[in-house]
């Protein structure tokens, strides 16, 4: 294949209104379309959604075209005529009826159809469909390096001649032909060919055209390695073992590697808080910025490394071709619950954070399967639950790490089971109908692209940060305000302690001065606990205590549960403030205080065994993440789904926790 083929007789020239051009990339999935987009635009792109949809749209500034020119990466489709949301988006974009949010609506100046050199016949069907639109067009035959390795040959000049458009052979992976493609972007021409309108006619047209292109070519080299790998990865036993090993490795890598940047982010926000705390005078602005904005954004931004790493690794796995095989392995396990193998990536992602998990449910083709996946995804134990699991399993099994680990694993298993059971129930009630049988292309095994993975991870990180800077920040500020106001005066006991400390400070004895520090710490704790009790959140806790009493929770635990709606892990610091007056739940002495804290009667422990078990079940099952609800509403297309998710998850959590608490009470476990 030569790199560029132009028609001898050029088609009619396109009419462009101005120097800036608007191009779209159209192609089958797995043709390297996104790699090509990354080659043409690099990091000069932005990610948004197509207006009125949840479908992601990437718009970039291609090199070599006039300033202001844009190239839009359309979703990968097998046919423009399919009744799928992705195909409809492509149809509407080509018709000039739809554009990404913030972009002007209008017909594209040029359609760049990305064809797969290793599967040209199928790509020709899409080329034919695009040709029928009568828009200026270029054909980029990608993956030419792979085709060469497999001795697949086709003469692109035949295609250029038949269509009357520029045809460029290239490889986004190696960079071959990219310069030629960049130059060709300005030369889109209206095709002179007009393939038949019927599907049968188009198939015949593509068959004949391919036969001409491949005339005289030797048969390609059979791909026996793929056969062997497929046999292993889709084998009932081997496939499952490979899946478990891959996912285990994925999670291990995420938790191990993300820990470092998470610590750095934590340190940065702690320093920033200290700096702002020192610069700003005490008062409402100080508290809002340090305790509300900074603490809120910090507690969310800390998850960015996990999210980036998750998408980086998933992108690598997807590029290798393994994920499609894993989806089939999981299909068998998920089908009894009314789901398909497509749901496994969203469930997997949700173990890091439900937000990217729900967003990745876009890959589930059937709407009902997708909604069931979205509803079930937050049951998967996300990283925000981990601090709560650590605290409660530590309280339940002090000095018994093996039992703690067992309980910890049980929490994960229970989350998965509850999610699958809920999906099954949803498919039998609110989302009735049979799951569509699984069918998908199994792309060739390839070396993954680090560049693509890094760009995807960067995009996902920014998307998450944008959310952290808007909706999540707003939620954090509201919850901070509820927890910090109204301001109260210090309780008399704290005032007495402070006076006592002042007297000791005046003493000449070093021991007395140390004693003064300890007394001041005690006074701080008393004031913090008093402020927490008197705050709006504290009052809500008192008012709602009867609601949570059947679960074994007192006023303090109710406040902790309510505060968790900002983020689940907030429970730990809230309880530390409630019972110890400081939010450093990592400290051993604070943990001891939590373990021995008593209720308002001064006798009963806050965390009895029955209460701790009840809390553990509640935190595994309850929906306590407002940002997740916001994303559910957006991705599912209506707030009713978020409301259903909230009511169902909290309902299941409430009933299960109450039942367990009373069973344990009846069994004498207190």
């Amino acid at each position, binding site marked *: 294949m030569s790199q560029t083929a132009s028609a001898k007789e050029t088609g009619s020239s396109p009419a462009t209104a101005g120097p800036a051009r608007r191009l779209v990339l159209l192609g089958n999935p797995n043709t390297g379309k996104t790699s090509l987009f990354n080659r043409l635009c690099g990091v000069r792109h932005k990610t948004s959604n197509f207006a009125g949809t949840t479908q992601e749209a990437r718009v970039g500034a291609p090199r070599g075209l006039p300033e202001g020119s844009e190239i839009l990466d359309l979703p990968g489709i*097998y*046919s423009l*005529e*399919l*009744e799928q949301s992705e195909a409809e988006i492509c149809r509407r974009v080509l018709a000039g009826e739809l554009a990404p949010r913030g972009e002007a609506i209008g017909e594209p100046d040029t359609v760049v159809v990305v064809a*797969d*050199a*290793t*599967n*040209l*016949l*199928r790509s020709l*069907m899409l080329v034919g469909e695009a040709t029928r639109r009568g828009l200026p067009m270029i054909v980029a035959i990608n993956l030419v390096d792979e*085709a060469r390795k*497999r001795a*697949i040959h086709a003469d692109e000049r035949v295609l250029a001649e038949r269509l009357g458009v520029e045809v460029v052979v290239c490889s986004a992976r190696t960079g071959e032909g990219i310069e030629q493609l960049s130059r060709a972007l300005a030369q889109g021409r209206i095709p002179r060919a007009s393939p038949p309108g019927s*599907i*049968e006619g188009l*198939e015949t047209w593509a*068959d004949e055209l*391919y*036969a001409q292109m*491949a005339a005289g070519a030797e*048969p*390609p080299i*059979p*791909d026996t390695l*793929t*056969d062997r790998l*497929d*046999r292993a990865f*889709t084998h009932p036993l081997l496939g499952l073992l490979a899946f478990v090993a891959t996912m285990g490795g994925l999670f291990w890598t995420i938790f191990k590697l993300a820990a470092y940047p998470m610590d750095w982010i934590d340190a940065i926000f702690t320093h920033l808080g200290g700096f702002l705390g020192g610069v700003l005078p005490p008062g409402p602005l100080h508290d809002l910025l340090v305790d509300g904005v900074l603490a809120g954004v910090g507690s969310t931004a800390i998850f960015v490394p996990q999210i980036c790493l998750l998408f980086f690794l998933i992108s690598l796995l997807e590029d290798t071709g393994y994920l*499609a*095989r894993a989806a*089939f392995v999981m*299909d*068998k396990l998920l089908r009894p619950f009314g789901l398909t193998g497509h749901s496994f990536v969203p469930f997997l992602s949700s173990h890091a954070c439900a937000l990217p998990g729900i967003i990745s449910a876009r890959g589930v083709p059937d709407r009902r399967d997708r909604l069931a996946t979205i509803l079930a995804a937050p049951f998967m134990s996300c990283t925000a639950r981990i601090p709560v699991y650590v605290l409660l399993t530590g309280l339940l099994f002090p000095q018994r790490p093996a039992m703690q680990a067992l309980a910890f694993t049980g929490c994960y298993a229970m989350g998965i089971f509850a999610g699958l059971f809920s999906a099954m129930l949803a498919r039998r009630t609110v989302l009735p109908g049979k799951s*569509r*049988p*699984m*069918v*998908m*292309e*199994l*792309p*060739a095994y390839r070396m993954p692209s680090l560049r693509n993975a890094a760009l995807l991870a960067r995009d996902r990180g920014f998307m998450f940060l944008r959310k952290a800077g808007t909706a999540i920040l707003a939620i954090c500020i509201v919850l901070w305000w509820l927890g910090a106001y109204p301001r109260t005066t210090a309780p008399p006991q704290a005032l007495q302690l402070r006076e006592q400390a002042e007297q000791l400070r005046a003493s000449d004895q070093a021991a007395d001065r140390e004693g003064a520090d300890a007394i001041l710490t005690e006074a701080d704790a008393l004031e913090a606990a008093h402020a927490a009790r008197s705050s709006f959140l504290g009052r809500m806790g008192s008012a709602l205590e009867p609601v949570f009493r059947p679960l074994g929770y007192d006023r303090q635990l109710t406040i902790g549960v309510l505060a968790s709606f900002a983020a689940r892990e907030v429970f730990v610091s809230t309880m530390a403030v409630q019972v110890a007056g400081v939010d450093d739940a990592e400290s051993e002495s604070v943990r001891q205080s939590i373990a021995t804290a008593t209720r308002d009667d001064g006798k009963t422990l806050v965390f009895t065994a029955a209460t701790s078990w009840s809390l553990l079940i509640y935190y595994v099952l309850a929906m306590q993440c407002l940002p997740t609800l916001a994303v559910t509403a957006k991705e599912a297309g209506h707030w009713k789904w978020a409301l259903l998710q909230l009511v169902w998850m909290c309902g299941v959590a409430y009933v299960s926790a109450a039942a367990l608490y009373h069973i344990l009470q009846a069994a004498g476990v207190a």
Partner: protein
Amino acid sequence: MAEQVRQQAGGAAGSGCDAAPCCAGLGTGQVVSLCRMRSGQCGIIRGLLAVGADGAYLRALGLRANQRIRLCRASGPWIVEVGCHGGPASRIGLARDLAAQVQVEIAG
């Protein structure tokens, strides 16, 4: 049955792919559903029983009449190589329900 499915496919027997070297052994007339083929067997698709969205999707993936195929794996999932031997191939994984809807004339 073979003739019936051939008619569904537009009476295309003998055209297009039949002329390719790998299909030289065809002509047995034995048409079976994909899920009754053995692993490693080759054939030509003679018809799709799937209609509606499933049928259109299979067709768009390349599982359409007169396409040469090779069955790479004969149990869940059924893995089919489309366009084998004589040309570029893609692999499609199918659940049994759909594999049963693809009618194939087996190579001799």
